[in-house]
């Protein structure tokens, strides 16, 4: 069951969690990414790390989404791609969330699971949850 804005799942209850994540921006652990070694100032290095982490997460999310929705290689996909525009229905969305939980070893609350509508939102939520996990 695919959905349009008029169908099933798109009655988004306000998701304070996701909007909080988006509003406060991203905070990152200061882990060194070898390929981003830079001689620039600490601030811009951190900015670089933050963008890299996002891109990597976005890529992983995209891969999972492509697999779940059985998208062809030439389907245009961006971080802003809405799951519904890619043909996902609510069952797909839930399966995507489960796959993300397994991949990133996180636990997503059900209300958040149903409110993820784009790849970027999923990546943001993952970043938020991973960051909140107790240090290994």
């Amino acid at each position, binding site marked *: *069951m695919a959905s*349009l804005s008029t169908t*099933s799942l798109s*009655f988004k209850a306000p998701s304070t969690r996701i909007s909080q994540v988006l509003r406060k921006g991203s905070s990152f652990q200061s882990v060194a990414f070898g390929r981003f070694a830079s001689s620039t100032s600490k601030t811009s290095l951190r900015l670089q790390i933050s963008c890299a982490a996002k891109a990597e997460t976005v890529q992983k999310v995209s891969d999972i989404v492509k697999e779940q929705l059985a998208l062809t290689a030439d389907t*245009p*996909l961006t971080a802003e791609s809405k799951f519904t525009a890619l043909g996902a*229905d609510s069952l797909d969305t839930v399966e995507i969330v489960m796959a993300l939980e397994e991949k990133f070893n996180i636990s997503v609350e*059900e209300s958040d699971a149903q409110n993820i509508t784009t790849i970027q939102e999923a990546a943001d939520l993952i970043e938020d949850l991973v960051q909140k996990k107790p240090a290994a």
Partner: protein
Amino acid sequence: MQRSLSMGLTSLLPLKLPSRMETHLWYIRPDEVKCASLLKHYSQLLSPTEKDRVLQMRGDELKKNALLARTLVRTTIARYQTNSEVDPRSLMFKKNKYGKPEVDWQNYNNCNNPPLHFNISHTDSLIACGVTVHVPVGIDVENKERKIKHDVLAFAERFYSADEVKFLSTILDPEVQRKEFIKLWTLKEAYVKALGKGFSAAPFNTFTIQSKVGTEGCYNLCKTSEMTISSLEKTEKCYEEWRFALLELADSHYGAICTEDDQAGGGGPMRVIIRKTIPFVEDELISESKLL
């Protein structure tokens, strides 16, 4: 078999509103609609916003299905004429405060606007629209053969209620188990959509839908209350005011319907009238609704 458009398009068959006890279910099969000029005709029914949304879908097939979904909604509602003919193009829609789509009758001066409720659901091979009067309706359709990528029980444990997990775990044949999982999914979705308050209002693990013992095709909604008083016993309350029907559509899909029972209908099982349609081309009354 495509009827040639050179024969001319038929007009929409006008219909009486469903009675209080009835749900009308209309469905369309995208693979039966191939004619480009017919699709063009359909696209002329849509509002500019709807057209934009159709265009946002990635890929031709998704675009076509999005177009057919809006066409189905508009033409279906337009059939239920009360005093004057309703042009499907002129219908307006709004959303309730939780985002559930509704008809916005404000542009009609007609005082007898039908208290019509609708809900739509689609898969890539079937799009359905349910219509009721006076009471909200939720529908969900799913391809019977849909494969679940995760282990069914793991999925159920994550999202369904404890009783539903128990029920599913008693099924030994994995294929039967998968089918029961999907049937439950459609029933649960239909309920949440009928409720119309978004998913946070009714997380899947807070309610159980189960067959009514001794009946065919009748289901009960039971909610597990999180509130405990003194003991760890969970209180379960069964809600008579929500009615369910589970059907097989076109031999390929499960369709679940949930409506609110406002008691004015006098109780009794839901009556479902199913029609297959290619708007402006043909409508077919499906005389046997296979209740599951």
